[in-house]
């Protein structure tokens, strides 16, 4: 089993147990109201179907079995044993089992179809993104190289430099995009193992800024990190990528010659870090959707060069190290602000 399905599996089964426990609770209330226990099978059936819709087939079958035992144990006389006195109750239990089994299969199939439809949507978004984001830089690179080879003698020095700069910039763009694709794939298949250690936030900020130097040329970056900020519990490599993606995002969405502000503060056992820009901000109601894969905020007049992966990776990486990120518009000011919350080392002691 790969490391990602494992916790998710455990979570699903825990959730299923909680649903069955809720059914038991409802049953106990009905019991107080002196409603005959044979009717409780519908309560448990509901629990099984809910499990199937929320978690899929296997947790639902698990719910079936858990319900059978719980039903018998709590509600069929003799109470609080797994034996059954009344034969009619055996029949009830048997048919409950059959109906729950068939029902959970049907409900799980509906769920699967929804998942397939979502996967289809994602796949087509991904193909669009792939073909656009891979081909555009490649086209520029190949075009520039062929010009250089064919017309080297007739090109002036500055035009040659222009073409070389194009090749360099576009190759770097391609490199970033492929990096994003790899990061996303690693997240998807659960290959991101966060190596959390005590990290100096100003240190990671420094390396992220250094890496983002080229894409931030047209922006002013203001860094505000208190010199006595406690260390934070992070994977420095993943966090550098998170900051890089946020800076890349700000550089893309905020107009040239505006400020990007990085600010960190201690907040009880946590440290928060804000990345604020002076762009158009986040469209109403999109503050969560922008973290979806292949989602791009697009305004009518401009086609964004984003890949739609950067923010999804930010959230994925941060979750892998027990931190979080939210987006909002700045208060009383133009622009978006991304706020990361992470545990400080003081929270451990």
């Amino acid at each position, binding site marked *: 089993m790969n490391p990602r399905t494992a916790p998710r599996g455990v979570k699903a089964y825990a959730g299923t147990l909680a649903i069955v426990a809720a059914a038991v609770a409802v049953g106990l209330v009905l019991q107080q109201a002196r409603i005959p226990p044979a009717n409780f099978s519908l309560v448990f059936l509901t629990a099984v179907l809910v499990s199937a819709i929320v978690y899929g087939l296997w947790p639902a079958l698990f719910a079936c079995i858990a319900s059978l035992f719980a039903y018998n144990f709590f509600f069929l006389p003799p109470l609080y044993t797994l034996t059954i006195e009344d034969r009619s109750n055996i029949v009830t239990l048997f048919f409950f089992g059959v109906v729950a089994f068939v029902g959970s299969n049907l409900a799980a199939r509906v769920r699967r179809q929804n998942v397939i439809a979502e996967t289809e949507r994602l796949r087509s978004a991904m193909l669009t993104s792939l073909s656009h984001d891979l081909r555009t830089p490649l086209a520029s690179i190949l075009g520039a190289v062929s010009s250089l080879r064919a017309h080297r003698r007739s090109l002036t020095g500055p035009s040659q430099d222009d073409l070389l700069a194009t090749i360099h910039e576009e*190759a770097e763009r391609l*490199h970033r995009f492929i*990096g994003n694709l*790899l990061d996303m794939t*690693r997240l998807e298949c659960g290959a991101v193992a966060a*190596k959390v*250690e*005590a*990290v*100096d936030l*100003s*240190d*990671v*900020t*420094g*390396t992220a*800024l*250094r890496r983002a130097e080229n894409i931030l040329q047209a922006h002013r970056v203001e*860094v505000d*990190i208190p*010199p006595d900020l406690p*260390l934070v519990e992070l994977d*420095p*490599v993943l966090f*550098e990528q998170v900051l890089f993606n946020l800076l890349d995002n700000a550089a893309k969405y905020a107009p040239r010659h505006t400020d990007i502000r990085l600010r960190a503060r201690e907040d009880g056992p946590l440290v928060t870090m804000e990345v604020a820009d002076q762009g158009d901000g986040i469209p109403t109601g999109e503050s969560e959707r922008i973290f979806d894969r292949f989602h791009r905020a697009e305004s009518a007049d401009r086609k964004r060069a984003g890949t739609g992966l950067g923010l999804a990776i930010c959230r994925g990486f941060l979750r892998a190290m027990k931190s979080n990120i939210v987006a909002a518009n700045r208060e009383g000011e133009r622009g978006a602000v991304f706020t990361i919350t992470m545990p400080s*080392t003081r929270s451990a002691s």
Partner: protein
Amino acid sequence: MSRPLRILVVDDEPPIRRLLRTSFAAQGYEVSEADDSPSAYRMLRAEDPDVMVLDLGLPGKDGFELIRNIREAALTIPIVVLSSRTDEAGKVRALDMGADDYVTKPFGTDELLARIRVAVRHRLHQDGEHAVFEVEDLKADLVRRVVRVRGAEVKFTPREYDLLRLLIAHAGKVLTHKFILREVWGGEGEVQYLRIYIRTLRQKIERDPERPQLILTEQGVGYRLKAPDGTLRMETA
């Protein structure tokens, strides 16, 4: 008398070898090539190159094994490793096994050349430490133990000074956390201490500690002090 630096390039990808051959030759260096570990090892013995550029992901016997073989045979040739972006563990492993430095693919040849020069220079001066070290705003007199930043003397605690001195002794080279902890704390410290000491050092010597220009972090690997620039020719006896 001096002769050009001889570089052995070990990579199984022909385009990378071609790139390196052309770029190194343009710098006046001599280049030989190998596409797997056994032939690299043979050429190392036969041609006695001054430095090796090694791709970690070779087919068959990989780069790690080659590094181990070379160091077990007590060969001191500097090794600069080519590694991939997401493989911090591999970089650390290669360094711990005896590689001198690394660059991450894709890389600029100027960056690779800088690493090569530093690695070779350190092999040459391994025993002799310079008495005065100077890079940008930082000037350290290691005999009198006086460090000046932009002309003003800066005071350090003994531990801070040890750390700075270690970085200076290996200027330009990446030092892993493990190596620094062993050299400065006798292997007893934790990375956490190191990070706090680095922060303090930066606050004392960097113009802008949030954008360090002198003590650079190699994320997930270690630290590197900026080296003074300089070209390199091999002096022949």
